[in-house]
């Protein structure tokens, strides 16, 4: 057990207060009864079999933050980092701020934030490895780095930026509520360290001494509706109508009703100019750009190859391409293998890749991986059976054909289903830029477009070499391509419209895409429009032979380039609903600058140099 010293000051102990039965969201605060089989168990902290004697052990605990009082002295963050032995680039708790008003009527509100040990922990649900557990003890949401494989998905879904992906260790770590201290009745290190009467801790929905409010919102804090976080605020001082962030996020928080109401996030436009910033399209998620696009292309191409002949397009059939058909299938299999390897190596701990399936019940990541894996295996089996029909020699020809066909049909179902799950990964409430049906039209659109492009490149060239007529093939593929591009285009149109209408972080993303990446974005849109136009022309006036193949190649380059840029933008533009940062710490803008200006090479700057 954590050793309590003889002279432990009174403020360090959690007060034993009477809590209501249920919290404001209707959840019981007593998580399990004392006679529940889950009660009375040891947390086995560092293998210690002892059971804590905290009288409120099975009640949901949470943080109390009096925003009026915080002075940004960093004592809470430091006490946390010291206790958890964290390197400078990592912190479970961080203090950021928003500010507003005009000198001298200026007000800054500092916000200290760690994990809120939510009632509905989206991290737990999102984690494919099931590294997260919500404990009956204190309602703590704990994450086990020994299970984590470092995909970082929890860091995407958490609205508060609580889980921290350590790029050095390749794993996520987060606030552990100092359950070792709770077991002996002490507040977490951060709350015990607070120097301003700002941060406190206790059973949830119990007002701390000399405090009067239990608010769930303050400017800069994301909507509590996503996860029902266990944090309560006091903020009584009158705030200016506009509160801005000092970090690089183009966001401010504005109160619209005169003199009252909540501050809602709004875009902060500062006359930024339209720029290219092509180099900044690259990010840690580069492997995912390739993985998603290749998977979509492979599935699309397979659908065309399998369904095309069934729909009467004989020029796509294995019979028409006895060599190219299986070769193309092997090509798709190879491409998907490459994509899967990339996505695996993108993990912090690739050797734990098999844990991706651990959370099929809740995690869209698990489902996506499972979907892709099923499709991949079916594609493999189908490819082998089509290429080596002799393998089924022991079956009647009819049975062999129907078995192959069944496998193919299953793959046809698995592929789009996998892409549906892939899209579901991005439907994250804490990331409004992604949380739009456009992700689905984009993924399916690219499936069609890139699938058509792939098939056309191979078959077009084969037909040209054979001197066969390829006009019909191109007419079909160009139509599919046009349909895919149109789907993407329609999605993007409504996406941009809805982002602007929706305000908040989504509108901020849109603001970035039209300013910082404005030229790139326009070029991508133009590329998409041009590709659609050319595809339609191609569909109506198909070329053939080497001319056709060459024109198709040109069109393909345009489509692929557009897709790459578009997917690159998709990852770098997202503005999460996370907490405001400070001027240096937790400011993406400064971190980027520190890497570019080589400041990050000094470890004490707290920014890890980029590896990608």
């Amino acid at each position, binding site marked *: 057990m954590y050793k309590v010293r*003889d*002279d*432990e*000051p009174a*403020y360090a102990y959690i007060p034993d207060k009477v809590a209501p039965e249920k919290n404001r969201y209707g959840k019981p605060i007593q998580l399990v009864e004392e006679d529940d089989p*889950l009660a009375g168990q040891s*947390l*086995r*902290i*560092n293998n210690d079999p002892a059971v804590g004697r905290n009288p409120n052990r099975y009640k949901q605990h949470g943080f109390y933050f009096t925003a009026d009082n915080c002075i*940004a*002295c*960093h*004592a809470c963050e*430091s006490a946390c980092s*010291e*206790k*958890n032995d*964290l390197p400078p*680039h990592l912190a479970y708790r961080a203090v950021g701020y928003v500010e*507003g008003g*005009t*000198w*001298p009527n*200026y*007000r*800054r509100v500092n916000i200290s934030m760690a994990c809120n040990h939510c009632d509905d922990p989206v991290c737990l649900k999102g984690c494919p490895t*099931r590294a997260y*557990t*919500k*404990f*009956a003890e204190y*309602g703590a949401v704990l994450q*086990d*780095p*020994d299970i984590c494989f470092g995909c970082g998905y929890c860091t995407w879904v958490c609205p508060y930026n609580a889980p921290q992906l350590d790029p050095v260790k390749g794993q996520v770590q987060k606030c*552990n509520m*100092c*359950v070792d201290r709770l077991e002996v009745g002490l507040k977490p290190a951060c709350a015990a*360290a607070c*120097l*301003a*009467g700002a941060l406190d801790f206790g059973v949830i929905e119990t007002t701390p001494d*000399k405090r009067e409010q239990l608010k769930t919102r303050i400017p800069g804090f994301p909507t509590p509706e996503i996860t029902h976080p266990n944090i309560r605020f006091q903020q009584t001082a009158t705030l200016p109508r506009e509160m801005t962030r*000092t970090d*690089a996020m183009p966001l401010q928080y504005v109160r619209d009703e005169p003199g009252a109401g909540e501050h809602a996030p709004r875009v902060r436009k*500062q006359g930024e100019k339209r720029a290219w910033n092509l180099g900044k399209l690259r990010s840690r998620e580069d492997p995912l750009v390739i993985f998603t696009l290749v998977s979509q292309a492979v599935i699309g191409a397979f659908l065309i190859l399998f369904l095309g002949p069934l729909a009467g397009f004989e020029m796509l059939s294995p019979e028409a391409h006895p060599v190219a058909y299986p070769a193309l299938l092997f090509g798709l299999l190879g491409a998907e293998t490459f994509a899967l390897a990339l996505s695996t190596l993108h993990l912090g701990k690739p050797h734990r890749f098999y844990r991706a399936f651990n959370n099929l019940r809740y995690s869209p990541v698990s489902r996506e991986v499972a979907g892709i894996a099923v499709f991949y295996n079916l594609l493999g089996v189908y490819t082998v059976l089509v290429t080596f029909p002799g393998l089924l020699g022991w079956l009647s020809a009819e049975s062999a054909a129907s078995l192959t066909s069944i496998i193919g049909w299953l793959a046809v179902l698995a592929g789009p289903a996998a892409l549906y799950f892939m899209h579901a990964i991005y439907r994250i409430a804490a990331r409004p830029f992604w949380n739009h049906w456009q992700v689905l039209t984009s993924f399916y659109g690219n499936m069609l477009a890139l699938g058509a492009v792939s098939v056309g490149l191979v078959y077009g060239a084969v037909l040209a070499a054979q001197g066969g007529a390829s006009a019909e093939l191109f007419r079909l593929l160009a139509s599919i391509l046009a349909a895919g591009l149109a789907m993407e285009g329609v999605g993007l149109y409504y996406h941009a419209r809805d982002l602007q209408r929706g305000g908040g972080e989504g509108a901020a993303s849109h603001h970035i895409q039209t300013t910082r990446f404005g030229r790139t974005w326009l070029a991508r849109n133009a590329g998409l429009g041009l590709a659609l136009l050319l595809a339609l022309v191609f569909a109506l006036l198909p070329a053939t032979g080497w001319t056709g193949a060459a024109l198709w190649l040109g069109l393909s380059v345009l489509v692929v380039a557009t897709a790459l840029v578009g997917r690159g933008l998709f990852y770098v533009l997202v503005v999460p609903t996370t907490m405001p940062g400070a*001027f*240096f*710490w937790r400011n993406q*803008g400064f971190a980027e*600058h520190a890497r*570019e*200006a080589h*400041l990050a090479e*000094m470890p*004490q*700057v*707290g*920014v890890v140099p980029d590896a990608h």
Partner: protein
Amino acid sequence: MLFGRKQKNPIKIPDKGVVEWKYTTCGYCSTGCSIEVGLNDRGEAVTSRGVGGAHVNQGKLCLKGIFEHELFRSAGRGRVPLIRERRHEAFQETDWDTALDRVAGEIQRIQAKHGRDAFAIVSTGQIMTEEFYTLGKLARGVIGTNNYDGNTTLCMSSAVSGYKRSFGSDGPPGCYDDFEHTECLLAIGSNLPEQHPIIYWRLRQALEKRRFPVIVVDPRVTMFAQMADIHLPISPGTDVVLLNALAHVILDEGLEDRAYMEAHTSDIEAFEAEVAKWDPDTAAPVCGIDADTIRNVARTYARAGAAMTIWTMGINQSTHGSDGVVGINNLNLITGNIGKPGGTSLSITGQANAMGTREWSSCSGLPGYRQLENEEHRKEIAAFWGIDPEFFPKKRGLFQTDIFPAIETGQIKGLWIIATNPMTSMTNTARIRRILEKLDFLVVQDAYEDVETNEYSHVYLPAAVWAEKQGCFTNTERRVNLVRNVQPPYADSKPDFWIFNQMAKRFENGRKIRFPETTEGAFEEMKQLSKGRMLDYSGMSYEKIERNRGLQWPCREDDEVGAPRLYTDGKFQHPDGRAKLIPLPWTDNNERPDDEYPFWLNSGRVVEHFHTRTRTGKIGNLNKFSPTPYMEMNPDAARRLGVEHGKYARLVSRRGDAVVLVQLTQRVPPDMVFVPFHFHECVNRVSLGLLDPHSRQPAFKQCAVRVEAIEDQTAAAVRNRAARSY
């Protein structure tokens, strides 16, 4: 488990494996927090925590203290002594005897050729009181130079001077417990939450129990200003005007404590005559605070049963620094707020042992608040040390800020710098470089060999840091606290105490005077020298200090604990036993903003750093909060100049220029920029630092600059990076 894994793994929480806790006192600021350092079974310092039962901090620590154990293994420490013939040559590693012989030889050579005062010593507020006492003995009694001062001239000199002028002696009369009793707190030029977070916490605790008006005077809207009931955003350099106006209202409206004034102060008439000139309507346009607010504050302060004033560098670092302190003392003398619970003039000190150097280092006189100008004092100390009193000068020599110009003009040829970094801390860096270049011989004694001043040294002596040695610190409220030895000194570094003792052996007087082998031996000498004086240590011992988690002086021989306050009987240290009310005429002598340089340059500290970052710049969990220099600037002013948030801008003054990252914020007025002072090759490339006539402290916080947008941001980033070795 409610939800999630069925098969639970044990929870892993880092356990640092502490087997022993050692008691020490924090070595950063002068709040004087008691710290326990945890050692693992290999004897390594692995964690720090505030001592639960300590009077000052009651278990709390600020972030610097929380990571203080990381100092022992921080980068840039000096391993062995370094030596070179000329400044432009590379250093050679050497042994202690060679290094010390060279230093002693150079001191003797320079003194023989140019006179005793041609060798100067500039020390610090960082080392232990016993070390200060020993250094004082060495400087005054052995080496015998009168050009001996501490870097406290850059921070506390105005407070010392103001206390001496008003009360007849240095020594802050109040204590932190006064927050528990006061009915009004006036804070002038003190950003308590940022500079002294634990003292702020003590104030916050008092306010949680009982509300009382808090009035903060600061041109910036600091967090403290936001917390205040009344914030007075004063014009830079006009504190004396405000203080005179407050006194004016109090006397004019008969709110003063006339009985206290008559019983305990002198020179009332001259004071009243000067104050009469400063009615609020005259003062308002000068200090930028409207007349009604001045009246309101004066009445609030005067009507409070007990009222106290705290201040830090906003007062001290000014051309009227000493006068500002006197003005505060005047205010408290006329309202009878000295020496009573909740009523005091409490200067919030900077360095861990700025008080120790003031008390015992002999920089400004002789040990134990004795003066060179006083024949009795000279005789007393000469007798105690066993030397001829005529060896002492009869008047104190140059302050640090006058020693450097004396090097410039060739009067001083050699310099010994101890635990201070003028290359970063003094104004006008370019001039400091030229000055250091001129020295025939410079020895730098510091825990860090990458301390920037070392660029100009001939000999570098690697010193032990903080709890690698043992001794006492005195804090802001006169509390003497103990640093126990926690770790052996790094590599071949040595405690400053040992270095001074070894140096003494190389001089004739040093072999005559007794230099105790242990710090406890030196402490015994201090006890004897302080017995019966206001600054009385005679009731203290190391063991008793640790048991009480610090003892305040005076602590007389049979006292269980020390006295929380001075002057409780209204008896002051001037010969007539009264405090002086001193008239404070005011002249506007700052370099004010004009068309060419339209901004005030203000500077100050941030909570994560200490002074010139030689320590905090290497501890990532501190440094990451501001790893590179920046400037707060008002967005309205920036817009006109095309200066952008998060980009570099150039700061230009009549002295030079600096490159800073721009942080646009309405916390600073439109005609002011604020730059933290911690960074090398930054704010002090442009600062001016006019000197206070009494304290010789530089006015770091007032000069004029202009701001220019930088087109080539990449070049600016390269230049900034080049100035950061840590």
